[in-house]
């Protein structure tokens, strides 16, 4: 899938190529009116509305952040660049919350 043009350079291109995966002990589940992210070990639950849940789900199941932006853009989430910018912010938030699995090659 083609990456967003305005973000497809330098450091941003590197971010867009990243695979984002949740920690193995986090469970993401889409329910009727919300998406729930649950920490399996503590029982802590975070609720997102359906659109927020779709963005999170796309982010953590797509081969790359850029691919997730493309998919969401095609689904009507708006301009691919804007979606990508939001996904970068979401990824940073998830990282700050300690929700992300180490990326392949990280720590080498």
């Amino acid at each position, binding site marked *: 899938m083609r990456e967003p043009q305005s973000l497809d350079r330098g450091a941003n291109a590197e971010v867009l190529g990243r695979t984002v995966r949740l920690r193995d002990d986090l*469970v993401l*589940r889409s*329910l009727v009116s919300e998406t*729930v*992210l*649950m920490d*399996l*070990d*503590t*029982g*802590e*639950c*975070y*609720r*997102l*509305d*359906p*659109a*927020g*849940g*779709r*963005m*999170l789900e796309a982010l953590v199941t797509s081969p790359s952040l850029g691919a997730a932006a493309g998919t969401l853009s095609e*689904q*009507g*989430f*708006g301009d691919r660049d*804007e*979606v990508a910018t*939001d996904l970068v*912010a*979401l990824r940073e*938030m*998830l990282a*700050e*919350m300690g929700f992300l699995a180490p990326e392949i090659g990280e720590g080498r």
Partner: protein
Amino acid sequence: MPSRFSNGTLKAVLACADDDLRRRVEDALVGERITVSAHVAATDRAAAALESSGADAIVVVSEQRTHTDRDSQLARLRTSAGDAAIVLVAPADTRRGVRSAVEAGVDGLVFQDDVEERLAPTVRAACAGQVVVPRSNRHELGRPSLSSREKQALRLIVMGFSNKEIAAKLYLAESTVKCHLSSAFAKLGVHSRNEAVDLILDQGEELGLGILKMTRRTESPLESWAPQRAQRAR
């Protein structure tokens, strides 16, 4: 020498808004030498009636199926009722919430189906200083000790996962998941996944909150982030 609570005459205030239930409760008490010294329709007025009548107990007939409001009223009544026993008559279809009622200050609980057989002995025992709950709900008073695997399996059934999916998520055999769930159900006193889910999601149950912890939107940047992004997709 027998206590007056075992066979002497006792007086009770009855808080009940339903006429049919009121008659059933009065019949159940009077036949056992417990006189209804005052009757009020609202629980909030029971304490004043208790003070003016000098009764030994208050019998509260609750029609409420949510525990939160009921327990708030009971807690207020407990504060103002002094040493008087408080006995709750609860709807038969609210088979849970016994612990929260006791924590709110109830000394005895009888389900409406059992009024004729069990109300009078419960009032007498409560007046004598005992806490009395139906045997079928005894498990609620003790907090069951769930293993970490049992908690994980319960969390996943709340999320709607099948045994097979839970097994895959926890890297266990499906038969092991079934064992964990059977054990957890027995400790919780439930007989099915649905009952377990209802119990865990019941906000009135501290037990439920021990298994799942819902974050508040104000506490979680993730949850407050989502609505802004969602605007674009609507």
